[in-house]
């Protein structure tokens, strides 16, 4: 039964960035769009263009006030809404390709195998067994997960305790804690997710994806983990004590034939998902009834960045071919 898809395309403010949109974070009211040319475009409220890096921005994190960008020029730069940029670290040219923000403004980043943490008490570093694939802070306490080849390391940078190793064969490329802090989930080279229940180290395998998973996002009620990588959004149940162990995922918002979901971002307050596809299309999908609303038509290149402002009133997206947009709800 063909249904005319509702559309919000006319409400989108389109922004041409001219290069790959690597990440978007909100700084105050405005969106800070980080690009493959090392630029940060501030849009919505304030408007500015800052050349933060000499090369490409490889990764970014935001605390709501500043955007922290890691570049292939070996620099870690914090930029605020006024366009003030401050270099926080300089590796001397080696890529800084991971950055994460923790509770109370703790910052982590990595250069090759070395993970760095900077908090009030100063800077510490830890050597991982192989190049760091991903970094994530636990929601509470100062605890950093470092994803790498054959597992992940849990590190309390302020304690002298030996870091704890969670082993699972294969290359782990990204990391995320569940909002309640009970689970750690990694994305893998093997086109699967792996998870550990931290209380007892119980493994969770979440596999069957046709491509690598790049986006992980928990729904507002924290019951589902929404993921990219397949033709539809794959949602794993995290409602119960066991998480998704032995359970089937739930699927939503299939894209047109031949496309993949390349980005997913759950609304921070409502049971609503923003979904980006490999053809550049962006949709909003309601969890309760799978109702879809079109946000942006296909533009020819994969959606590479997708973010909600913390109050959930603005959605920002960007693609690999430099098409970005802001939607006010």
């Amino acid at each position, binding site marked *: 039964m063909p249904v005319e898809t509702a559309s919000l395309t006319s409400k989108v403010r389109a922004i041409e960035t001219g*290069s790959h949109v690597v990440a978007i974070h909100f700084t105050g009211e405005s969106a800070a769009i980080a690009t*493959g040319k090392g630029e940060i475009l501030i849009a919505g409220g304030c408007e500015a263009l800052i050349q933060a890096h000499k*090369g490409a921005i490889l990764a970014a994190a935001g605390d709501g006030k500043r955007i922290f960008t890691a570049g292939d020029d070996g620099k870690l730069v914090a930029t605020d809404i006024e366009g003030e940029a401050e270099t926080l670290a300089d590796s001397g040219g080696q890529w800084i390709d991971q950055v994460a923000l923790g509770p109370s403004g703790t910052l982590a980043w990595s250069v090759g195998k070395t993970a760095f943490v900077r908090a009030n008490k100063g800077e510490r570093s830890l050597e991982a067994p192989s190049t760091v694939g991903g970094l994530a802070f636990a929601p509470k306490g100062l605890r950093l997960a470092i994803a790498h080849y054959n597992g992940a390391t849990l590190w309390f940078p302020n304690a002298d305790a030996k870091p704890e190793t969670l082993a699972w064969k294969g290359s782990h490329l990204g990391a995320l804690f569940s909002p309640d802090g009970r689970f750690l989930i990694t994305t893998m*080279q093997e086109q699967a997710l792996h998870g550990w229940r931290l209380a007892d180290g119980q493994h969770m395998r979440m596999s069957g994806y046709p491509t690598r998973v790049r986006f992980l996002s928990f729904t507002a009620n924290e019951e589902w983990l929404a993921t990219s990588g397949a033709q539809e959004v794959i949602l794993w149940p995290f409602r119960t004590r066991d998480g998704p162990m032995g359970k089937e995922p739930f699927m939503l918002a299939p894209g047109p034939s031949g496309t993949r979901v390349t980005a997913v971002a759950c609304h921070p307050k409502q049971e609503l998902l923003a979904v980006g596809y490999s053809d550049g299309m962006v949709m909003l999908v309601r969890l309760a009834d799978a109702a879809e609303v079109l946000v942006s038509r296909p533009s020819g290149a994969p959606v590479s960045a997708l973010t909600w402002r913390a109050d959930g009133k603005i959605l920002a997206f960007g693609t690999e071919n430099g098409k970005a947009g802001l939607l006010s709800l």
Partner: protein
Amino acid sequence: MSDKIPVTVLTGYLGAGKTTLLNRILSEPHGKKYAVIVNEFGEIGIDNDLIVGADEEVFEMNNGCICCTVRGDLIRILDGLLKRRGQFDGILVETTGLADPAPVAQTFFLDDTVGGRTALDAVVTVADAKWLKARLKDAPEAKNQIGFADIILLNKIDLVTSEELREVELRIRAINPYAKIHRTERCDVPIQSLLGQGAFDLQRILEIEPQFLAGEHHHDGHGHHHHNGGPKHYHDEDMQSLSLRSDEPLDPDKFLPWINDLVAKEGPKILRCKGILSFKDDPQRFVLQGVHMVLDGDHQRDWKSDEKRESRLVFIGREFDAAAIEQAFLACVA
């Protein structure tokens, strides 16, 4: 996507001249920009705007297959370079002298992002005309690099006599009869003979014939089927090639399960394979190429009216059972 960024892999044993070749490619007035991935960042004099240091990290895929390895560092770096898309025309990857080219090549077939946006163009191996013979005896890595190559630069020919040169070429041919050999001093070869080769591109597989040495006559090609068409003056103790041919069309329902099963079981022993196949009642050529257990195959184009409809399949590898493979191949005749 047709606009995949071409990637050329430069291999070669220590001291053969990889850095010389890299600098030659970069300094020629071709008007193209290359991103260069090197294994020793900052230690060698390479003059290029975009240069990235890599720590060679060979990762096994967690899929139970021991030869399904990828270069984790390369996936990470190519992911990063792709964010600069449009700022360069191609990528050159220089490996360490001890590197196995297989994980590098497999990365392009086993990772969806890398494979979807970049294309492995060719593996170019630089070999030292004076020292290669010794390295083939004591360094398995050197042998892998020769066996794997699409193009071999036999370098430093000014340091050997013509007899020595001929002998080292025959040693190379005993391992790899299919690579193009260029004799060079200081890697002086026109770069258009190295780049833009499409050696892993199924659409560009034209023919599969062993390459012959200068002055040799083409003495291959009358029998119904036979193997090792190339020069047989030398046998390598463990590396071998196998060339199979059939004038009778093959049954795809027999051939495809067989070849998939073969690479699944014998993959670790097969460095590379390549085939052009004629299937019964099929107007199109079927082409395939593979690296260890990774196999890629597709219909290519219609057979031309003046083209001989025969099937050719070649393998380069070590310690495989050539007679058994040949027998099984011939059993696939429709």
